[in-house]
């Protein structure tokens, strides 16, 4: 497919042909793997999303068709879950950005004089990666449970009504999403802020910009690449997540996101076309949002 480009280039001169041949050998195994196990599955997902139930088969048997209603049915049934997924993901991304930026700023700019402190703090930022994602989320569920200290305290100061809960609410799901993705936000922010030249900030102050103006007009634009990759690394997995919103973790049936519907339709109800249609909708919306966002933020080379 993509490799036809090599032949035309190779015909021009002797040396590049040999080099293109080496490039082809280096690329072929990995690219073939991605075509087989990434691109082909996406295509089978599209095919599955149009399948119709097999009239003569069991539950879970489908035949290839062009059943457009799979999409309208799935969106008609699950549109609140789709909206909730993107709403939760946007809120969690903004919260993670606001919480992470000062952390990254301190580690990347202020702590430069102490490299040991810098590496210790970075280790603490990535420490949650070393313990299972599911277990961290379950730990929050126990901490926020009705018998837990936080609910007891909130009830005693009457912030929470005596029959109130924290788990299974919109709050706990967004809380879990924010918590779980803070490291994904902090690391790219740190990577750009670490290279920030503080002389630009001094120049801003010398030109009588207030600290707020310097921050808004110098620091933020210079850290834009980190902001873009951090928000993408948070937003994309958060929109598709179904652990935090799951009943057994921090959610309840009233907080279900589109990921929960995809899982239930595929693995429990064996309604593969509905799950596939919802997956395609989720991916399409994410690609549109990411495309617009990346273009607006002006960072083109992501890899």
């Amino acid at each position, binding site marked *: 497919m993509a490799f036809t480009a090599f032949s035309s280039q190779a015909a021009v001169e002797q040396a590049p042909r040999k080099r293109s041949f080496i490039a082809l050998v280096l690329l072929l195994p990995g*690219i073939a793997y991605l075509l087989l196990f990434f691109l082909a*599955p996406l295509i089978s997902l599209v095919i599955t999303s149009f399948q119709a139930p097999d009239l003569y088969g069991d539950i879970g048997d489908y035949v290839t068709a062009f059943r457009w209603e799979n999409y309208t049915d799935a969106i008609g049934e699950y549109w609140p879950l789709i909206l909730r997924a993107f709403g939760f993901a946007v809120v969690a991304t903004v919260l993670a950005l606001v919480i992470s930026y000062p952390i990254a700023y301190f580690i990347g700019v202020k702590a430069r004089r102490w490299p040991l402190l810098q590496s210790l703090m970075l280790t603490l930022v990535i420490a949650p990666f070393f313990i299972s994602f*599911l277990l961290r989320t379950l730990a929050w569920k*126990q901490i926020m449970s009705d018998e837990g200290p936080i609910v007891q305290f909130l009830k005693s100061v009457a912030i929470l009504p005596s029959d109130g809960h924290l788990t299974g609410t919109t709050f706990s799901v967004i809380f879990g999403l924010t*918590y779980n993705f803070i490291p994904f936000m902090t690391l790219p922010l740190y990577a750009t802020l670490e290279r920030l030249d503080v002389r630009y900030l001094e120049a801003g102050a010398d030109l009588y910009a207030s600290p707020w103006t310097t921050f808004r007009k110098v620091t933020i634009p210079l850290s834009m690449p980190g902001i873009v990759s951090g928000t993408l690394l948070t937003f994309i997995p958060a929109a598709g997540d179904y*652990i935090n919103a799951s009943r057994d973790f921090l959610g309840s049936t009233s907080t279900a996101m589109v*990921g929960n519907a995809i899982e239930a339709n595929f693995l429990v109800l064996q309604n593969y076309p509905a799950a*596939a249609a919802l997956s395609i909708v989720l991916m399409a919306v994410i690609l549109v949002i990411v495309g617009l966002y990346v273009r607006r933020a002006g960072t083109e080379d992501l890899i």
Partner: protein
Amino acid sequence: MSGVTPARGLDEAMFDAGPASGSPSRPGRRIRFRGLGLPIYTVLALLFLLIPIAYTFVFSFNDSGKLNIAWQGFTFDKWTSVCSVQGLCESFGNSIIVGLTATVLATALGTLIAIALVRYRFKARSAISLLLFLPMATPEVVLGAGLAAQFLTLGTEKGLLTIILAHTMFCISFVVVTVKARVASLDPALEEAGRDLYGSPSQVFWRITFPLLLPGIAAAALLSFALSFDDFIITNFNSGSVDTFPKFIYIAAARGIPAQVNVIASAVFLLALVLVVVAQVSRAARAKRLAKLLP
């Protein structure tokens, strides 16, 4: 919990914009207070990140029955009876097998791609970059459902092999990104010198290129293993009846997690922490040695 207000830290970040911004007329005590806001916020935020880890660790010593929710007293028993929970150690072993295999495959395939992307010019570059970027921009639930749909169409039996195939797929792009940075920082003159000294292409690769790339390759391999070991969403779609450690937790979550799960997670956490600290300390020591050698 998130009682630390981020606005305060941000405020500090702005006010501390540069050393030149501190006007001498400001009273000394106030300046010192200002300077402390950001470090205090950062320490509190880092402690907040550690809360669930501390919780998991403490509850690995809980003298609990089947359910590990309320604190029942301190015991070492769970640490010595890890495998007494049915299926737990088997799932952990599966996670190790999957993690190691997927890491080796993804690191090999991704490293070759990274070398090609930096060293060679070819017309399909943008298409290949897109193909490498897309798996990272696709939510895991879509990757998982897509592979599951493909295995369903092909009639492939789900099991350890399908989990490994899935994990290798999502690790490749991360390996490429990590190793690419290392290849780009490599001075081609070193390899030219090797060729000038009549080194064969394989000698040049194994004696010069590979050792220089090794830190990047090692980082990519560690990242792959961590991603694979902790993956649940894609595994859930492609594992059939085989359990990995995260899948064991997911299934157990419905009826209550035994404390032995906390034991394994805490042990893995401590091992990873030791590895990272050792790596950092040895890097700092090497930097110091190098600094001594230079005048």
